[in-house]
C-alpha cells in the first residue's frame, strides 16, 4: 500500500463512498469478513465488476484483504471512516457559533416587536 497524506486519503475515502454498491459491501463487511463470492451474492453484477469495487475500497484503505491464495477474505478497516468524522467535526464549532447568533438575533427581533408573549 502506498503512503498518502491524510488529506489525499480523505478525498479518496469520500470518492470510494460515493457508490451505493460499495457502501452495501462495507455494510456487509461490518457484520464480519467475507470473500468476493459472498460479497457478490446480493448483487446482480458479474464477479469482475464486484472485484473492481472491492479494489477501489482496498485502495482507499477501507477494507483489507487476506493473503490466502484461494480464499482471500475482505475485512473492514474503520480508520478512514474515523478520519471523515474528524473532517465533519471541524464544522461543528462554526455552526454552534452561528446558532448562538441566530438565538441572539431572534431575541432582538422579539423585543423590537414587543409581542408580549415572553416566556423565558
Amino acid at each position, binding site marked *: 500500500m502506498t503512503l498518502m*497524506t*491524510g*488529506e*489525499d*486519503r*480523505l*478525498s479518496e475515502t*469520500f*470518492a470510494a*463512498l*460515493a457508490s*451505493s454498491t460499495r*457502501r452495501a459491501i*462495507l*455494510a456487509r463487511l*461490518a*457484520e464480519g469478513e467475507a470473500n468476493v463470492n459472498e460479497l457478490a451474492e446480493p448483487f446482480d453484477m458479474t464477479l469482475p465488476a464486484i472485484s473492481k469495487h472491492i479494489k477501489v475500497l482496498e485502495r482507499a484503505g477501507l477494507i483489507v484483504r487476506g493473503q490466502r491464495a484461494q480464499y482471500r477474505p475482505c475485512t*473492514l478497516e*474503520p*480508520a478512514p*471512516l*474515523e478520519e*471523515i*468524522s474528524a*473532517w*465533519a*467535526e*471541524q*464544522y*461543528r464549532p*462554526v*455552526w*454552534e*457559533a*452561528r*446558532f448562538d*447568533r*441566530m*438565538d*441572539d*438575533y*431572534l*431575541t432582538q*427581533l*422579539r423585543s423590537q416587536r414587543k409581542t408580549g408573549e415572553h*416566556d*423565558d
Partner: protein
Amino acid sequence: MTDGNASRDAAVIERSFDAPPDLIWRMWTEPEHFKAWYGPDGAAVPVAKMDVRVGGSRLVCLEMDTPGGPAQMWFTGEYREVVENERLVYTESVSDENGNVLPPSDMGLPSGHPATTEVTVELQDLGGRTRMVLTHAGIPAGSPGAAGWAMALAKLADRIEAQGAR
C-alpha cells in the same frame, strides 16, 4: 463525541429555538435575516442571493477583516429540497463572485476538503418553539443523493460501533 447517534460522515447539530418554525424558516431563506446570523464572528455577509426552490441557486459572500484589508469568500450552491417550514437541503461549494465553482484549495482550505458539501435543515414544531437538526455532510463532487449516503454511513457507523470493531 457524546451524541448517541452521531454519524461519522457529517456534522449533526441539534438546537431548540424559542421561535416558531416559520420564523426559523425565514432565518434560512430570507437574505435580510440570513445575513444577521450566518457570518462567523468578525465576518459580515454583504451578499446573500437565494432562489429558494428546487434547482434554484444560491450565492453567499462572507467578508472578513484581515490585516491586509477585507477578504471575501464566495460560496455557491443549489437547493435540492424545499419543504416550507420543515425541510431545506442545499449544496455548497467555494466559488468566485459569479458563482463559478473553484477548487477548495484556492481558498486555503485543505486539499482533502470535499469540493461540494450538503447542508440539511430539518425543523420540528414544538408548539411555538422549534427543534432544528442541521446536518452538514461532505459529498464528492458530482455525486447525487448525498443525504442517502449520509444515512447509509450513519447506519454503517452504528454497526461498527455495535460490534466494537477495533
